[in-house]
């Protein structure tokens, strides 16, 4: 654990202080920091990063929370369907989402812009995605389902009696919402806010593809630029990484403090309640329409534009008369490409491999931290949590430093990708496994011990089987997120270890829109198949845990 999390950060700090290039034996200075932060443009870098992360966070929070309320607490039509559909965008990789919105809202080729220009006879396209607003729109929309999921849980687990008590005291629905519901949801809101802020801060796809075109630089894209220079400026990248790391570390610390304070007043219990449903009357048709429109923007339009683009040999705007021109040429091209096969097999191996390693390793760690009373437990907890503070691109920079300096020959191989995914997603594994470990009543293991079973026997025969639902869920999740990982892979890949997300990024850079779209559709289909297969496997081999105790 220490090796996975702490060593890269140590190397990063050391790298940021080194003079000269990578392998020079220069002394340590603050030169890199002077260069990086002495530049007046770095100030705008900070401001941009904060505006972008803050805007993304607010936008996703407002949308996600209102939808969660509509779905969970009102009689809006389609709400149960919506709950299932809202999870789809979580599967769609950020890079694909970004690309599809460029195809929709770019001033030059954007489909929506073109429609509006034609419809209202406008002089110029109304939207420019290559702006701060555009960046916030795409990232915020992409993160909103996450807020939705978090807030649904919060709204669902509220004791309805708390609101009913207000109702019987004569309060109106509006004032109940303001004075009771929102107050009860406040802890969940605050923690979602911090999570979204950090996600915005460390997001790479939108800043790289949209922000750079509009010349809006944030930390993540600046780090990438430093490494794209010739020769790559590793020291500068490390210095910027340290800055980004510190901001996100501050956010995470705030988050953990918030969480631990919230535990003290447990307004939201684990019990399953039947929440109070508000009858919206005829307004429910309006709210139903809002749900549909949101879903259209969230999934419908981006996915349709990808399919359309993928079926066009030469990029063109969607229209009826071009239907005859559609062909599968792009798919043929992509499938025949040698790199495609390499990328898919690399992605599959590295994502499945890292998911398996993470889940098994963290099961053992969670067992130690949750069940044992050893003293080092708090330290282990902290170290395993550490990687969550490391933005993907920062991890990439750190790993470059580690494996270019240390004599371990994995740089440029798939192993370094595997290692970076394991490091990045370790905290999620810990979270999931600790959560299910906590739910396993101590007495279940003690009963095994009383029955004469040794510790190891107990772990394999009682603990692991009971963890299974969480293990499978966590496995699926980590497969998805590592499959679509871009921000650290982009710094660590070589032509041999290329993965799908990189291939897409690369080809997009080369202007191959149709082929990129075809590849994207294939990637989405691949992920959907993967997820449903894993879910099926989960229900087949999983167990029903109905512990009545």
């Amino acid at each position, binding site marked *: 654990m220490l090796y996975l999390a702490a060593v890269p950060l140590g190397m990063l700090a050391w790298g940021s202080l080194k003079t000269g290039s990578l392998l020079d034996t220069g002394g340590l200075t603050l030169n890199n920091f002077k260069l990086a932060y002495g530049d007046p443009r770095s100030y705008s870098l900070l401001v941009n990063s904060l505006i972008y992360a803050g805007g993304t966070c607010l936008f996703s929070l407002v949308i996600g929370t209102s939808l969660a309320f509509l779905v969970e607490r009102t009689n809006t039509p389609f709400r149960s369907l919506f709950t299932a559909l809202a999870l789809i965008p979580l599967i769609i990789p950020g890079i694909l989402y970004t690309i599809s919105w460029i195809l929709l809202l770019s001033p030059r080729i954007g489909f929506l812009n073109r429609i509006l220009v034609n419809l209202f006879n406008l002089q110029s396209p109304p939207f420019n995605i290559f702006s701060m607003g555009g960046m916030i729109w795409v990232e915020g929309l992409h993160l909103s389902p996450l807020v939705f999921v978090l807030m649904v849980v919060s709204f669902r687990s509220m004791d309805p009696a708390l609101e009913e008590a207000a109702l019987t005291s004569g309060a109106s629905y509006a004032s109940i919402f303001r004075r009771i519901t929102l107050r009860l949801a406040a802890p969940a809101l605050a923690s979602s806010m911090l999570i979204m802020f950090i996600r915005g801060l460390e997001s790479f796809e939108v800043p790289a593809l949209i922000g750079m075109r509009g010349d809006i630089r944030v930390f993540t894209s600046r780090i990438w630029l430093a490494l794209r220079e010739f020769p790559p400026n590793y020291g500068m990248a490390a210095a910027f990484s340290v800055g980004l790391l510190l901001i996100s570390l501050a956010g995470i610390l705030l988050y953990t403090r918030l969480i631990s304070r919230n535990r003290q007043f447990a307004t939201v219990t684990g019990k399953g309640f039947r929440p109070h449903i508000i009858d919206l009357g005829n307004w429910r048709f309006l709210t139903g329409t809002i749900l549909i429109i949101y879903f259209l923007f969230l999934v419908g339009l981006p996915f349709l534009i990808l399919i359309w683009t993928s079926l066009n040999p030469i990029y063109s705007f969607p229209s009826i008369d071009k239907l005859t021109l559609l062909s599968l040429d792009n798919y043929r091209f992509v499938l025949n490409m040698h790199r495609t096969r390499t990328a898919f097999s690399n992605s599959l191996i590295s994502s499945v491999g890292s998911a398996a390693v993470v889940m098994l390793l963290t099961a053992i760690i969670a067992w130690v931290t949750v069940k044992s009373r050893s003293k080092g437990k708090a330290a282990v907890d902290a170290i395993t949590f550490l990687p969550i503070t490391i933005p993907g691109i920062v991890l990439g920079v750190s790993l470059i430093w580690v494996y270019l300096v240390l004599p371990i020959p994995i740089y440029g191989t798939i192993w370094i990708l595997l290692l970076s995914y394991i490091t990045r997603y370790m905290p999620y594994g810990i979270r999931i496994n600790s959560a299910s470990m906590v739910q396993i009543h101590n*007495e279940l293991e003690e009963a095994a011990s009383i*029955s004469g079973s040794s510790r190891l026997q107990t772990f394999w025969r009682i603990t692991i089987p009971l963890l299974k639902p969480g293990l499978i869920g966590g496995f699926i999740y980590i497969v998805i997120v590592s499959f679509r990982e871009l921000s650290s892979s982009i710094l660590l890949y070589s032509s041999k270890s290329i993965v799908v997300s990189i291939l897409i990024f690369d080809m997009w850079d080369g202007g191959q829109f149709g082929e990129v779209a075809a590849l994207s559709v294939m990637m989405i289909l691949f992920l959907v198949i993967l997820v449903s297969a894993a879910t099926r496997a989960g229900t087949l081999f999983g167990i029903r845990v109905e512990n009545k*105790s």
Partner: protein
Amino acid sequence: MINVDSLVKIFRGSHGDQVHALDGVSFSVPEGQFFTLLGPSGCGKTTLLRLIAGLENPQAGEIYIGRTLVCSADKKLSIPANERNIGMVFQSYAIWPHMSVFENVAFPLKVSKQRYGRNEIRRRVDNALTTVRLDGFQDRPAPLLSGGQQQRLALARALVREPKILLLDEPLSNLDAKLREQLRIELRQLQRQLGITTIYVTHDQAEALAMSNTVAVMSQGKIVQQGAPREIYEQPLTQFTADFIGSTNFLPGKVITGFRSNGDRSVQTEQGIISCQVPDEIEDGEQVLISIRPQHILTSREVNPAAVNHFTGILREDAYLGEYLDCQVEVGTTLIRVFMPPHLNIQRGEMLSIHLPGSFCTVIPHNNHQEYSHPASKIGSLT
């Protein structure tokens, strides 16, 4: 069979404070006996059971099971739980939800160092399940059992290795009242039939009284009184025991100097003089509490203030409970709780005479009073 000597267990709280869960507890349980640890939650009874099981280790003291020293703080010795060969039923039953009924019971045999053949396992499991009347449920997934069935399954699992001792941690507390009474009888019958030495932990005084050979009443990490159920109920040594077990009235008073008749001494209370047995270790002039159970107080309409232990009161409250009337009688400034026969037709506000028979009055020193009253008796005992 089980010998526990001066056990001390200290838990460190999250703020560095120390909780003395056990504060020098000693007792011994003869072979084949049903021994109950009774006390309110937090008194240390479950901790004590877990120490005997080997799930926790004490800071001081020793435990013998049979002639084997299983745990000693001084000698830094502790035989792990999986080598103590005991059966235990947990409060939550700890039925493994990923296994069938059969697999749950077979588990102790499968992990045993002693190898059992497939047929031997089947025979023993079937046997254990028959003992607890769960035969025929072998292939049922364990989570699909009802509460009472889960309790029996846990018992079968505890008994399948035929251990020398059985530890039961509030095994009936998760069941509804009727089922609890039924299983209480079954459990006791089974224990007698197997002759297995049993330690039972409960906070339910009725269970403790009904099932045990010996009851040890615990409070704040100590055993405050130990004895046969009848002794515990009729001769409580402390206010805590009297209050925790059953309902009672406490009348504060002072032993009058030098006044004796037929071995009884007199206690001056607010209501008047009460004549009853006072333990020899209580000196004349000492502050005492007289404890008398509501069902032992006699009432009559004829007011006769002159007779010994008779007082005049006014009926303030009466609740019809079917089996008896639960009444509050005001005597002086104190409300005394009295259970009267249900057919008695008496009106609130009526004057009546109550008689506190000396043989049912227990005199308890009033100095080291440990405050405890359970909700039901709170109304009655205005001490």
